[in-house]
Every structure is written in C-alpha cells, then in structure tokens.
C-alpha cells in the first residue's frame, strides 16, 4: 500500500517535471526560431564585461523595491484608515488620491513629482525621490487591495467579537487582522511583483537601476542591444519569481478554509 502510494507520488512528480521541461522547450524554441528568422545574432560573451554594472543596477533595483514595498504597504494601510475617517475632507482627500494615482500613467507621475514637486520642495536625492514616487503610486493600489479585504470580512465577525466582550484593539488584532492577511496575501504579492517591474520606469529620472544600466550599456555598445535586454529580463524574473513562490507558499500554509 505504502509503496503504491509512494510510487504514484514520484510518478506525479516526474510528470510535473516533464511538463515543465516541455513548457521550457516550447518557449525557448519559439524565441530561438524568431531570433533566427529576424536574423538576430546572440553573443552573450560580451555581457561578461558588464557584470559589475549589471550587479550594481541589480542591487539598486532590489533596494528601491524593498523600501517601496514597505512604504507603499504603510501608505496603503493609512489610506484605508483615512477613507474610514469621521471627517469628510480626509475621506475625500484619500479617495481623490486613489483615483488620481490609478487614473494616470506612472511615467507622467514620475516626471511631474520629480521635476515640479521635487524641485519646489528641494528634494534632490534621486534615490529617496524614486522610492517616494514609486510608493505613492503602488500605495494607491495596495489601499484598494486592503479595502477590498476588509470589506470581504463579514460584519458578522465583528458582532461575534463584540458578543464575547473583546475590546476594539483585540477585535482588530485577534479577529480582523489574521483573516485580512490571509485574504490579501496573493494580491499583495502580485502588487509587490509590480513594484519590482515598475521601478524600471525610474530610469527616466536617471536613477542607475537595472533598466538605466541596460540603457547605458546598449547606448555605448549597440551590438549588445538584444542580449542586454534578455539579461535584463532574466534578472527581473529572478526577483519576481521568488515573490510569487513565497506568496503561493504563504497562501497554502495559512489556509483554513477547505
């Protein structure tokens, strides 16, 4: 019995591995075929010379992303609180923020914030400005994710919490927060992956992150144009893939509804 189920388990695993291998082959052959057809020559050996610059750009992208994730999460949570405020003006201010940010392109926001608002208020540190701009952008989306999560928790849960005499703070900590976290983890992880990718637009204000590094390399050595961007794509995947794996793992290990 045990051996049967064990062998069926390994059989399942083998099937999965072969399936992924197949997927990889299909994508790779499509890309290689397209490259040959378009008469593009890939020479990755040139890339080695730029390893340090790529590394520096990678580190900066990671730093910007990590700070922006943290800041956008805090900002998103504050906006949710603001939208439940007793004062109409604060409520409307928060709603306007979400609508304006979600309704305009990030590129426009970067230029507007950095060159006009940044200049007006003497914010010249590009790294700090970049993190703030990206956080303000992602924070609007995160606030909507959190708001949706809060609304999805039935008001019944709060009534049960009241019926057993919990204080407001304990209701939040013991009832609302744990259920909220489990519900919003997948969407938040998706948004974090967006933070990483969206940080590439900060190259517009000459922050030397991954995208800007690639732009600079290809500008000086045009023959590396395609290979540089492929390396760039792989490096972004290296960052976003663990985020999505982590979210899937968290989702599984915290699941209570079957």
């Amino acid at each position: 019995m045990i051996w049967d189920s064990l062998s069926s388990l390994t059989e399942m695993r083998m099937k999965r591995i072969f399936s992924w291998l197949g997927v990889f082959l299909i994508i790779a052959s499509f890309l290689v075929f397209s490259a040959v057809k378009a008469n593009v020559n890939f020479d990755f050996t040139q890339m080695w010379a730029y390893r340090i610059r790529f590394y520096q750009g990678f580190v900066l992208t990671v730093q910007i992303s990590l700070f922006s994730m943290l800041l956008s999460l805090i900002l998103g949570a504050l906006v949710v609180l603001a939208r439940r405020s007793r004062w109409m003006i604060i409520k409307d201010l928060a709603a306007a923020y979400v609508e304006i940010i979600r309704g305009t392109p990030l590129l426009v926001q970067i230029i507007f914030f950095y060159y006009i608002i940044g200049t007006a208020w003497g914010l010249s540190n590009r790294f700090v400005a970049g993190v703030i701009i990206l956080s303000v952008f992602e924070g609007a989306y995160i606030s909507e994710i959190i708001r949706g999560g809060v609304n999805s928790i039935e008001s019944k849960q709060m009534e049960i919490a009241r019926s057993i005499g919990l204080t407001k703070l304990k209701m939040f900590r013991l009832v609302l927060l744990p259920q909220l976290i489990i519900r919003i983890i997948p969407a938040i992880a998706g948004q974090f992956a967006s933070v990483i990718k969206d940080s590439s637009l900060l190259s517009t204000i000459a922050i030397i992150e991954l995208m800007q590094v690639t732009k600079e390399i290809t500008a000086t050595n045009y023959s590396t144009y395609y290979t540089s961007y492929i390396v760039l794509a792989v490096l972004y995947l290296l960052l976003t893939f663990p985020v999505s794996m982590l979210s899937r793992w968290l989702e599984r290990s915290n699941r209570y509804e079957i």
Partner: protein
Amino acid sequence: MKFEFSDLTVRFGSQVVLDKLTETIEGKALAIIGPSGGGKSTLLRVLGGLLPANEGKFALNGTWVDNNAQRLNEYRKQIGFVFQSNGLFPHLTALKNITLPLIHTFGMDKITAEKKAMDLMERFGLEDSSHKYPSQLSGGQQQRIAIIRAIAIEPKLLLLDEPTSALDPELAYEVLSMLKQLVESGVELVIVTHHLGFASNACDTVMYMDEFGIGEFGKTEELLRAPKTERLQRFISKILSI
C-alpha cells in the same frame, strides 16, 4: 432570570421593530416563539447588548442596562451569545475559538483555558473536533462548539438566536439535546426557536411575539395547551398542521 423591559423601542430607519415594550418576565429557560419578522431576533440582540435600543431600557435580575459603551461591554461579558449560524471564527480551531474569550476577555492563562475547553468538549463528545477548523466541522458540530464557547465563560445567562434553523433535523436534534442537558444542569437561557417540541420539553417559560409586540407569555404547559390570544392559537395550529 428576570427581565424587565421599560418602553424598549428599536427602529431600523422608519420601520419600528420593537414598539415601547414594557413587561416583566421571569423564568429559568425562556423560549421566544412567533412568526418571522416579529422582532424576536432583534429583541434577543438588544438583550445580548449587541444592539442598543433607540429608546427605553431593560434590566437583568434587577440591574438596569443603558447604552453607555463601556458598561454595555461589561454587561456583554456576563452573557453567552449563540448566533443562528457561522458564529465561529473561521481562522481559529474549535479549541482556540473556545479559549479566545477565556484568555482575552477574562485573562485566564492558556493552560487553564485549554483544560477547561477540553473538559467541556469531552463532556459533549466533541474532543475529536478540538483541532479542526470550523470549515471542517458539520453545522451541528459548529453550533455545539459555539454553545461550548458561550458557556465556558460561565455566563449569568445564555442567549441563543434560532441555533438550529440552518440545520437538518438530525443535526438540530444533536444541538437541542445538548441544550436540554444544559438546562437540566441549571444553565439559564433565552432561546428564539421554531421548535415547539423543544420549547415544551426543555423550557419552563414561553413568550409569543409577532409584529404587534409581545402577544402573551407564561408557563409553557399552560400557554401551549391553552393559548389565550387568537394570534397564538393561529400560530400554534399553523405550525402543528405541517
């Protein structure tokens, strides 16, 4: 238990659900019966301190309860409340659902709380469910865990809002026989229910309520055998005709 209502009024918008209820009701186990939409659940939520009355007040065992938030919360701590359905926290196991109020409302230490919860679960044959989440339990098991959570705090009074209405007859029986056992062991309760059988077997007092307010109340035997008002007569014959 002894409840006194004085001009108790609850409105939802322009709809008056409880209209100046003034009454004194005494009993050990009180069943509130009557047609849907008659304000039974609303009254129970007011008595549980979950819904502040728009006007008027009520007293439990001589102590008047008003709408002051802090006093209302203190009052709620003396009451065990069981909801119609889905009354448990879905992110906590049965055991944790029961120990949560013990630990976080009453400051009991974790070991004592868990021992108490396990003892109660064993008493009602639910020890196998202790580490299951609500979604892994049957509706009847969920309700029985909810009842255990409510009685674990040793409340002055247990309030139950149609605890079996979402259950099929067999599971409803499980829950009702547990409640009967509790009543026999001296737990005082108020239950909103459609089970006239349970009301007559387990409750010493019955109150009939419909959209015109409290129709009549009294000792179960007298009231169910010889209803005085036409409203109650019609309600009972309607239920018995099914």
